[in-house]
């Protein structure tokens, strides 16, 4: 990635040089003619209702730009785009100020969803807000080339208790996806949720007061970079879940350079389902995914842990091994090739939540948590969970050396799960950094062994992962 940045710099310098080259030509420089206006429709304020706007969207030609006026406009039903190419929907400003920005309000809508888009290759959505849409604010599926830029998707009032916005920005079953410069607030599931997609870049967004901040799910080749993710239940999630039809696996994801802080919100009242797998107070969570790198992030103030890496088994997710995705692949519940390194992680683990606070009789790990904390207390150590947690479950098919009960075991080479070289702020009074906890969960459950802490040998490794390129 450094080479990429260098390349961009080099290009910029070339451009600067080229410009100055032109300027050197003396006083004869001609002002180029203004570009012809893009074909399309400039929508009037009077047309800013779902009936008229849908008629405009239906009539749009491939390549059109639909320009929305500033103001806040109420919609009674969803806006829809189907079967278009190279369509751009652009509003004014960044969607925050109704006097000069474009805001689409679905507060009084009769049916769910804000803007729903299906089969719109090379589409761009830019400079507007979608407020108070039940279901999904902006949903784009089955499209190759999706840009969401400078948008705001928000549940505006008391999202913790009233939100019915499942997802904010939601590209799914799509390829070449860019979500950037946007604000997502108050979804009861994931704010930015990219599912069943490939070649994804999610960058420079401000995502808060959701259950999951940013989620990459059942997807391939994703970059999550430079986002500010805060005050969600969990910050950034890299998940593979059973159920989806296009892909059952997640692989090749890099989470880097994000600011992830204070993701300690209890799940929204309306949250339900697999998103509740996130223990509140988790900075980043990697679930049943392969080739995932979490690096150069600043991860601070999380009451459960900074980074949680778990198999589906560890998360209690059940699945049918017979079910295959459209590629013919079954669900893969294991973590392999995970590398958590060079992150700044501080202020973590003071009050573990979710499964770690759920009574053991209900399938939770509360007994373990209480025992772990008691052990720390007995040693005179601060009673906190470490910065990085791994459930320690190894795939018997691709790992080796597992015990008869399925516990233990190691992966070789780049299949390993590694957490090394993070910049950990030691908890106050600690005698060691609290960097890693290898739960060795199966041994914990069967009583055949226990977690590895403070030195987690299996996590102390480095690996090399394939390059992740994101949106191409």
């Amino acid at each position: 990635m450094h080479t990429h940045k260098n390349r961009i710099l080099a290009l910029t310098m070339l451009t600067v040089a080229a410009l100055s080259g032109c300027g050197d030509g003396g006083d004869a420089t001609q002002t180029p003619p203004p570009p012809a206006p893009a074909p399309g429709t400039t929508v009037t304020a009077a047309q800013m209702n779902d009936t008229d706007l849908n008629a405009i969207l239906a009539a749009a030609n491939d390549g059109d730009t639909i320009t929305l006026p500033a103001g806040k406009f109420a919609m009674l039903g969803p806006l829809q785009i189907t079967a278009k190419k190279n369509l751009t929907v652009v509003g004014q400003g960044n969607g925050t100020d109704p006097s000069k920005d474009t805001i689409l309000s679905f507060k009084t809508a009769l049916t769910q969803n804000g803007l729903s888009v299906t089969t719109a290759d090379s589409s761009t959505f830019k400079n507007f807000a979608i407020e108070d849409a039940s279901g999904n604010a902006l949903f784009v599926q089955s499209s190759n080339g999706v840009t969401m830029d400078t948008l705001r998707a928000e549940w505006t009032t008391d999202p913790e208790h009233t939100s019915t916005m499942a997802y904010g920005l939601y590209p799914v079953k799509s390829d070449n996806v860019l979500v950037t410069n946007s604000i997502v607030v108050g979804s009861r599931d994931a704010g930015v949720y990219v599912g069943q997609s490939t070649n994804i870049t999610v960058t420079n967004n401000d995502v808060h007061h959701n259950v999951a901040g940013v989620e990459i799910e059942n997807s391939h080749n994703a970059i999550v970079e430079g986002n500010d993710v805060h005050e969600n239940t969990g910050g950034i999630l890299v998940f593979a879940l059973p159920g989806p039809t296009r892909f059952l696996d997640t692989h090749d994801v890099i989470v880097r350079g994000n600011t992830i802080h204070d993701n300690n919100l209890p799940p929204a009242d309306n949250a339900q389902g697999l998103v509740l797998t996130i223990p509140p107070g988790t900075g980043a969570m990697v679930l049943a995914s392969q080739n995932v790198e979490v690096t150069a992030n600043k991860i601070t103030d999380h009451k459960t842990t900074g980074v949680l890496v778990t198999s589906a088994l560890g998360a209690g997710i059940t699945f049918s091994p017979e079910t295959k995705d459209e590629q013919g692949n079954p669900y893969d519940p294991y973590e392999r090739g995970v590398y958590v390194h060079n992150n700044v992680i501080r202020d973590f683990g003071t009050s573990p939540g979710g499964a770690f606070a759920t009574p053991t009789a209900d399938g939770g790990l509360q007994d373990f948590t209480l025992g772990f904390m008691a052990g720390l207390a007995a040693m005179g150590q601060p009673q906190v969970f470490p910065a990085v947690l791994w459930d320690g479950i190894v795939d018997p098919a691709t790992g080796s050396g597992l015990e008869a009960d399925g516990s233990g075991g190691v992966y070789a080479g780049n299949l390993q799960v590694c957490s090394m070289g993070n910049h950990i702020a030691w908890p106050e009074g600690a005698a060691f950094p609290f960097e890693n906890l290898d739960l060795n969960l199966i041994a914990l459950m069967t009583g055949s062994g226990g977690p590895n802490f403070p030195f987690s040998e299996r996590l102390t490794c480095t690996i090399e992962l394939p390059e992740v390129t994101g949106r191409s």
Partner: protein
Amino acid sequence: MTTPCTPAPRPASAKAWLAPALLATLFALAACGGGGSGGGEATPPPPPPPPPPPAAGPTIFDPSEAPTKLSAWHLVTADGAKLQLDTALVPYDLNTALFSDYAFKLRAMYVPAGKTIAYQAEGALDFPPGTALVKTFYYPKATGTDPDAMPVGQKTQTAQGTSIDLGTNRLIETRILVRKADGTWAGIPYVWDADQKDATLTPQGKYLSMELVPDTGASQKFTYSVPNTQTCEQCHASATNGSGSAVPIGPKAGNLNKNYDYGGVVQNQLAHLDGLHLLSGFTGVGEAPAIADWRDTGQTLEARAKSYLDVNCAHCHNAKGYASQSGLLLTHDNVGSAAADTWGVCKLPLAYVGTGLPGYKYDINPGSPETSILLFRMSHVGAGQTMPVVGRQTNHVEAISMVNDWIAQLPQAPCAP
């Protein structure tokens, strides 16, 4: 309906070259007053080759050139007192129909003269280009309480036939699904004018304030939604993620396999189409599939639920439909199959996160309709919960009861709490 006599069957060979309206008139004459050959069963001799047909009967437009008024199609006529299908149309009904806020529907198909429908046991019948499927939505008239809302009756449809009495019914919209020359389909919605004499092209959709008045009990106000072009696709592009070319949803062999009252003559619909020589490749009613009428208490709950979910959900909830990303697949073939998680049993929802109430965790929790999200979403209205997301603003109380009973008796084990 116009003639008290039993109409004679129409030979399809004649249909190819005779204007249908003229044909009907000839037969009416032959059967009732003509010839004195005695009895309505008489078959007339083959008529002589006629002159070129007059410009009567339906005109099928390319959807991009749809006329502003429905009357220009000559598919139906309405005079404020009665809506009448053109005689070239064949009306039909479905074993199980999509619920649309208790609207009644008069369905009919127009197949161009000389063309046939390729019969297939699975999926919609393969109609020839130039076909128009014509569906008129209407309600029994009722007396309401709010002058700003159109009062409509909350009843269960049993009416069939070829006309609608506008003394007792109110027309709302007529949707035309046309198969174009290139084989693709497109939907064209018309909303009926206040005088009930014609309908106006409304591709942008329309909201109508209504008051649904039951025979007994309190009425409820709701907003009836005429779908726009995109919404049509969302349901009808059922094999392409709800985008692009629409396909018919209702007229599948299994759903057409039932009797219809053709104005006094009751006949199996597939046999009727076959008798009109409109079907090719048809292997007989005996071999045709039939899905249950979900209202038929003589059928098993499973058969009724499979039918209802297929017709009301599976246009989106199939592996190629608009809701495929949910992984909840509610086709007739899939519901009840061994892969129970794929039709909701103990399946955590993927693209939806909850009722906001405790206890609801799975789409279907066998034995526990009161904690099954599928039933919750069927039985609520409002932006946050309503399923289907298109075309329902009121609860289908009779179907909710049936699906409740079905979930309650499912043989699968209850899900983990």
